[in-house]
């Protein structure tokens, strides 16, 4: 178990190196630091001096991959690529490209908690709600409830999440005045700002997830052990909850777990619509301001989360299914 985890983590680090190389290529080779400087300084009268000054301020005034002017190991280490990569792996993110914005590091750690406040309850409720709905459909399979339930699922998954947000905000905040339209306060009072985004986000994903889980349950129900359980004279409820649910948990853990990093992604839209100062809103701001340093950092942080999640899912397997041994 322990050696497996170490191996997984090492592979994860290797993947992270690849991600780093990819993003560096995208952000520094496709467009050179000169282009970025020009874009950020803006205006019509851009002199080479201004560009050089901008580059020195951010440490972009070195060769990209190989420094011909240096000797020995410094040929590789005294470059933008080396410095940026090392600082990313040490989780030092440097400062944002924009003039007014400050350091990225503190911003990320502060905003991460806001994101978690939204994402964690959402994730837990999502799994519970989708599983419950799917189980309900499976319990009443081959009836009208199942049929129309699936029809509702298909309809719901054909609607863009943006529609849920706009209609939800209009209905609950503007017409009924139950929840505030948007905003954020620190502390426990934040709950009233989180209810609406969580409920709408739940609804937006329910169709997709419930349909998927329903298929997983039905696949389990066709198996021999279910027939055995029924032949023993167990009631349908016991069969479903004690046998089928447990065995279907494995694919559900996989599918729900792979959504974990996307909780962070999905809330991109929700955070910005509801004015929550989380990581998602940060990314959107950075994209509109074309702040490459922030976007690059977020790509790195996102992949880090993703890789960490997959190690966690592997561990969760052993807990859900004792047959799985990590070796």
């Amino acid at each position, binding site marked *: 178990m322990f050696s497996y985890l170490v191996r997984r983590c090492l592979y994860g680090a290797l993947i992270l190196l690849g991600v780093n190389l*990819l993003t560096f290529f995208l952000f520094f080779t496709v*467009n050179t630091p000169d282009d970025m400087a020009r874009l950020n300084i803006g205006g019509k009268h851009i002199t080479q001096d201004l560009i050089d000054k901008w580059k020195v301020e951010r440490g972009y005034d070195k060769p990209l991959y190989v420094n011909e002017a240096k000797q020995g190991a410094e040929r590789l280490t005294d470059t933008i690529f080396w410095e940026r990569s090392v600082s990313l792996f040490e989780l030092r993110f440097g400062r944002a490209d924009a003039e007014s914005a400050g350091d990225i590091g503190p911003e990320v750690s502060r905003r991460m908690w806001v994101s978690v406040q939204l994402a964690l309850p959402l994730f837990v409720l999502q799994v519970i709600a989708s599983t419950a709905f799917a189980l309900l459909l499976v319990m009443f399979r081959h009836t009208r409830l199942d049929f129309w339930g699936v029809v509702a699922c298909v309809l719901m998954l054909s609607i863009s999440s943006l529609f849920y947000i706009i209609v939800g905000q209009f209905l609950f905040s503007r017409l009924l005045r139950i929840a505030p339209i948007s905003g954020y306060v620190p502390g426990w009072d934040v709950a009233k700002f989180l209810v609406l985004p969580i409920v709408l986000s739940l609804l937006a994903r329910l169709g997709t997830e419930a349909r998927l889980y329903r298929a997983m349950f039905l696949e389990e129900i066709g198996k021999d052990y279910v027939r055995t359980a029924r032949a023993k004279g167990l009631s349908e409820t016991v069969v479903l909850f004690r046998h089928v649910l447990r065995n279907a948990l494995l694919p559900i853990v996989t599918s729900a777990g792979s959504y974990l990093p996307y909780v962070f992604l999905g809330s991109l839209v929700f955070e910005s619509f509801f004015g929550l100062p989380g990581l998602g809103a940060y990314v959107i701001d950075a994209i509109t301001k074309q702040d490459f340093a922030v976007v690059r950092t977020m790509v790195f942080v996102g992949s880090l989360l993703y890789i960490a999640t997959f190690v966690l899912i592997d561990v969760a397997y052993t807990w859900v299914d004792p047959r799985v041994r990590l070796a």
Partner: protein
Amino acid sequence: MMPKFVLLWTDSTVWALVAFVIGYAVMVARSPNLKASWRKVFRDAPALCSSLILAMCMLVTMADSVHYRPALKAAAGSPAGSVAYDTVTKSGLDYLLSDLVASREVTYSRPLDYLSYRRDTVTINGQPQRVSPRLLHGGAHLSDPEHQWSSDLLSRGGTGLALGLLLAVAGALALFGLLARARHAGFVDTAASVWRNEGEIPWRAALWTLVIVATLTGIVISLMGAYHVFGTDTTGNDVLYQALKSIRTAFVIGSLSTIATLPLAVVLGIMAGYFRGWVDEVIQYFYTVLSSVPNILLIAACVLMVQVFLDKHPDMFETGVERADVKLFLLCTVLGLTGWAGLCRLLRAETMKLRELDYVQAANAFGVGPWRIMARHVFPNVAHLMLIVTVLDFSSLILYEAVLSYVGVGVDPSMNSFGGMINLARKEMSLDPVVWWSFAAAFGFMVTVVLAVNLFADGVRDAFDPRARAFRPRLAITRRPAAQK
């Protein structure tokens, strides 16, 4: 004078796609296996009905994929024989809807209304009063709108309804005729059997869809000339026109992006599964790296780079439409290059299973080379997976476009798209009184398109993947009463 035809990047790919679909249809007609599978798709009533709707959307897309720049009248003093062209690139759809493009209002107006949304202060009898001015085009033909308006709407709508019904009846008659010939049965017998919903293909459901679509289209077309059926947006442009233009954007994104994933996914997936060993390791590493970056961030990063590149070379394109089009094309490429990991993983697993089968082993023993085996024996047997994943991804990409446009890395703002419409709607929904029509139109069109694609995709998956069929919801009691006869 002849206009100058412009072949945009996405146009050429749309037409290549149309050619491919026709070629594939011919192939299906010749191959009994494929034919049987596709028959299964159309045996499914939702899939059949949605294919009708998709065909209509495809027609709109095709009409919108012929671009030209109209020739301008020769200016006095210009040398003879030289023709100047308009700087605005138009499409076939623009030509068909030129009335809608021309009938631009000042600002918002409600659907089918003859008064503006905005109120002006006008002095009437010495008293300043707030009144809504008449629209420039919507209902401009009415001399006494307060009394004529509703009757005019009814008569126009009624005409459209009648014409639409007529069209639907003509379509139904044509279908009966064709079926009667194919079955060597009498015309009336065929019509009766379709009415009782007998036979393999659920033609009755398709006919009902035809009736609904034809009447709605008829009503909209007959009202379109005199009113703004879905109202106008903030700059007074017709919302119906925007929604129709958005269909092409959605289709181009859905189809081009999925097609762009295919080459990498198929080649690498089959290679990884067939060769295994270090090739497999390297390819796995590639797609793990790619898929461990959250998709939207990777796309945002790539699109930002594309944007900077386009900003750096503003003189590469002659017109705004060409620039927006290249951006759309690159967006599709980015979506394709970042989204091939899922299909690749699937194909790798399937190839691993296939390569152990007897026929592959036999080909190997006969000395057939690995590349030939992959092309001739493995590829045709994983092609159904490609098809299933392609149609399933189509709808999610249309939905994705809206999110990307909101984030600011979607299509060019000058290009009509559902995402763009929703974005504007966000502000409009907070106005007072609410401007809901633009949002409602985007919602209606988008849900129709996505739902149709989803239902069609489900039909395709059930037909080509026998395992999936077990999960279809069934009504145990009402299932096929006719089968007992």
